């Protein structure tokens, strides 16, 4: 275990990418309104600034640094020796403990930054969506820390299945509404079609966005996909870099699960940046792991698509299965999103990031082994990364290679125990 320190800047990979990032676009066939024009209605200007920033290093405000320290950053990096033993692998496995935050996942890293900038710009309420509840609880927590109101649209299926997540958000003072709801036009329309509509992350995003657009002083918060979200998450990788240096380790394989891509990017982008700009880590592999239920990076197309189902948000060029794709209901609800962040998509397209996809059965088996050996119950999303770690570790065993594998332990599964209990 290593202590390390919290960096005083975030790393913006955009100016270091091998190709220009395609800008957000409005749909060509709809000139009723411009989604790009709506962006200032949705986000505080400090975040838009970061979204389009030309700088590769952005200072972390002291208030956010303080909040990071308060939640236990830097989070430890831990060696999974028991798992190594059970797998009988010469590989060294390290995991970055993003589960140690108050809400149990990496999501607070951006939630705190977004709540801080919103507070600075006198925002009254932050509205967002959540499916698994990880993002919703992170934002509810951050809003409580910076004393802002919080409204969360939670996909109806999760709302019904995950009462504890709802309770947690309520404890932080957030209002939680099952989506589709009768609070928005998009929600009312869907409820008319099907009063029992289970909802989807895309629909919940649309409801949150609509609420921000239609109400003064209400801004929208987003848990993944946007450049500024991935930027805030680089605190994970920047800490990891320092910690690995202290441990005198060089990562051979870096792994993370991908819903929209924020925890994977958070861990890997600072390392990928070194590879792209300094020519270091030439042989390091970066593997993004998704769920077969929403296979955007392994089977999707690299095209412009709206970030939300209703199409209130601009179109971004990304790997996607299409915004109307309905993934099967899996425990890893955080991985059901239809697209991968534009920056991550470029890196996949360029072959810098490798991709993998697994089914729920495969990953939960790996997660159970991890829980039993390392004593920490992974979130079903994190289980995807663990599956890939085991694949790589067993490869090392066959090839007798002592590689250093590092992965993002993005969240714990203590509020998702139903995923592990027999039906």
């Amino acid at each position, binding site marked *: 275990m290593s202590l390390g320190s919290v960096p005083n800047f975030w790393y913006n990979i*955009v*100016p*270091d*990418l*091998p*190709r*220009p*990032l*395609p*800008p*957000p*676009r*409005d749909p*060509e066939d709809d*000139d009723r*309104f*411009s989604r*790009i*024009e709506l*962006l*200032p209605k949705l986000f505080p*200007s400090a975040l*838009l*600034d970061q*979204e*389009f*920033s*030309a*700088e*590769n290093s952005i200072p972390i405000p002291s208030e956010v640094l303080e909040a990071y320290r308060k939640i236990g950053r830097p989070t430890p990096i831990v060696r999974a020796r028991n798992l190594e033993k059970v797998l009988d692998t010469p590989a060294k496995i390290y995991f970055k403990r993003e589960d140690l935050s108050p809400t149990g996942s990496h999501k607070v890293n951006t939630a705190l930054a977004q709540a801080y900038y919103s507070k600075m710009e006198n925002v009254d309420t932050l509205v967002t969506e959540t499916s698994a509840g990880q993002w919703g609880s992170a934002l509810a927590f951050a809003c409580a820390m910076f004393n802002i109101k919080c409204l969360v649209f939670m996909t109806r299926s999760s709302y019904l299945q995950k009462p504890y997540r709802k309770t947690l958000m309520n404890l932080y003072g957030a209002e939680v509404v099952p989506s589709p709801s009768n609070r928005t036009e998009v929600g009312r329309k869907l409820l008319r079609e099907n009063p029992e509509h289970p909802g989807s992350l895309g629909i919940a995003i649309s409801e949150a966005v609509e609420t921000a657009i239609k109400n003064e002083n209400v801004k929208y918060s987003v848990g993944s996909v946007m*450049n500024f979200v991935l930027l805030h998450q680089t605190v994970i990788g920047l800490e990891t870099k320092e910690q690995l240096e202290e441990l005198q380790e060089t990562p051979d394989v870096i792994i993370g699960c991908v819903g929209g891509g924020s925890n994977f990017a958070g861990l890997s982008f600072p390392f990928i940046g070194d590879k792209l700009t300094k020519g270091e880590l030439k042989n390091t592999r970066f593997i993004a792991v998704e769920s077969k239920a929403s296979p955007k990076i392994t089977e999707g197309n690299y095209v412009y698509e709206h970030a939300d189902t209703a199409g209130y948000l*601009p179109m971004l060029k990304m790997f996607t299965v299409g915004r109307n794709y309905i993934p099967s209901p899996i425990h890893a609800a955080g991985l059901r999103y239809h697209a991968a962040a534009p920056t991550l998509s470029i890196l996949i397209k360029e072959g810098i990031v490798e991709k993998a996809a697994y089914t729920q059965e495969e990953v939960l088996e790996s997660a159970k082994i991890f829980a039993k050996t390392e004593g920490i119950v992974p979130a079903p999303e994190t289980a995807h990364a663990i599956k890939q770690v085991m694949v790589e570790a067993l490869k090392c065993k066959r090839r007798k290679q002592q590689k250093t594998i590092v992965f993002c332990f993005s969240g714990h599964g203590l509020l998702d125990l139903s995923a592990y209990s027999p039906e």
Partner: protein
Amino acid sequence: MQGNLREALKSKVLVAYLTAGDPYVNSEIVDVLSKCGVDIFEFGIPTVKPKYDGLTIKASYKRALRNGATVEKSFSLIKNFQLAHKVVFTYFELAKAVGLENFMEYVSNAGAEGIFFPDLLIEYMEELETYLRLCMKHDFDPMFFITSTFPHKMVSKLAQLNPAFIYLGLMASTGTFLPITVTKAIKIMKGLAGDTPLLVGFAINDPSQVSDYVKAGADGVVVGSAILKLINNGQNMRLKKEKLAKFVRSLKEALEA
């Protein structure tokens, strides 16, 4: 014509964007712009795929297309405007659909000093060599469009190709203002562009922006949507011309201050 544009770009320049074929864009308007200090005219070719355009220019394309504009007709309009400096700004996707060789012929025949494509490096990076070859063939100086999020390495490389200018699109789409600190991006991109003139545009509609951007390192500003908004209405021509003249002079003053 070769060399003139580079000469003009030695001073701070005011560039006006106009859609060729928009019925509101006529010789009277062009005259006013010229007399009030526009140094370079940048003409857009109407397209049904306005990828990075905001509502104002999109509407301008639509008017042009409804008015019967074709690529050929648009270029013949550009040819008829007798102006010191003309360049063409349109999508590579459109030029490819027409045929690149033909398209460059059109540009050349219209008396323009060059063409640049906002989507060339974003969507067709592999065709940069083709573009450079065609520029050489027609004696055009290359010109490049970049955004604030362009890779720094690439901007440095573009500058080494000795283009007439690099055009930095300040916003995500034309005419669409976002509350972002673009002066930082101008400083960074000018630092990378070095001696290459850096023009900036997208959503410029106020002299204070012009002063700020020049102070940050811009060598010229491009104004499009703001001009179109002043002329795309039913007001009588005299009134339109007065308003336009006042607006353009205010930008020019800010540029030279």
